[in-house]
């Protein structure tokens, strides 16, 4: 496979990925609303231990959606940067400063997702136990392996962004060699 074919393959597959991520960015918020509005407390336990009593009220569901928006927005922002990166690749822009910015912002968003997730779970525990009698309300703070993975992955993406910044410099220098 020659350099032109390789470039064309990157462009073609990146374009597909770009649309896939665009669909995901629409589907995720819809899925989140659907889950909170339809599932029972037992089914929602997949999120983590929820300390609510009995069936969830509409207020509890709507409040939970509002709380979930915090980590969701950060994750959607990271996905937005990933989509932009693939859009740049699809347009044949591989080593531009815009690409580096995508990596940097995506890395920081992922890194920020970890504390946001911890905060989200804590806020959710307070919100869902808010109607409990005094003494039975709870604030649970938990760190899951997912949070550690987000921190590690975010950090890794930031380091990759530094390497990409070096690659951009090399590419620009190479462009000045005829």
């Amino acid at each position, binding site marked *: 496979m020659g350099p032109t074919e390789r470039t064309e393959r990157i462009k073609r597959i990146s374009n597909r990925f770009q649309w896939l991520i665009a669909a995901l960015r629409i589907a995720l918020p819809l899925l989140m609303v659907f889950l909170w509005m339809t599932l029972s407390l037992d089914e929602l336990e997949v999120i983590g231990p929820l300390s609510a009593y009995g069936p969830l009220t509409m207020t509890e569901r709507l409040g939970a959606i509002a709380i979930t928006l915090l980590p969701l927005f950060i994750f959607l922002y990271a996905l937005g940067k990933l989509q932009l990166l693939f859009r740049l690749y699809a347009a044949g822009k591989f080593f531009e400063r815009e690409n580096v910015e995508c990596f940097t912002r995506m890395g920081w968003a992922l890194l920020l997702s970890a504390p946001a997730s911890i905060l989200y779970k804590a806020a959710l525990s307070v919100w869902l136990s808010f109607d409990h009698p005094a003494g039975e309300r709870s604030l649970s703070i938990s760190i899951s392996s997912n949070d550690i993975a987000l921190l590690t992955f975010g950090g890794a993406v930031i380091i990759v962004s530094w390497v990409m910044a070096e690659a951009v410099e090399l590419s620009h*220098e190479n462009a*000045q*060699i*005829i």
Partner: protein
Amino acid sequence: MPITVTLDVMLAKRKMRSKDLAARIGITEANLSLLKSGKVKGVRFETLAALCNALECQPADLLIFEPETEAKEN
């Protein structure tokens, strides 16, 4: 940069136009123009060989080394 590209001199000697040379060696006119004006960081051996081949000359006919002299004030 103490290296000067004398491509324009060789083009004049061979009575060849930049456009024709660019087409013969497979680079864009814009890149050839940059090369002629010395606004590049380097020349690939591949390009140099193609230039020598097209212009029937040696690399030394296209490049001149002129040491930079710094005026020292005491």
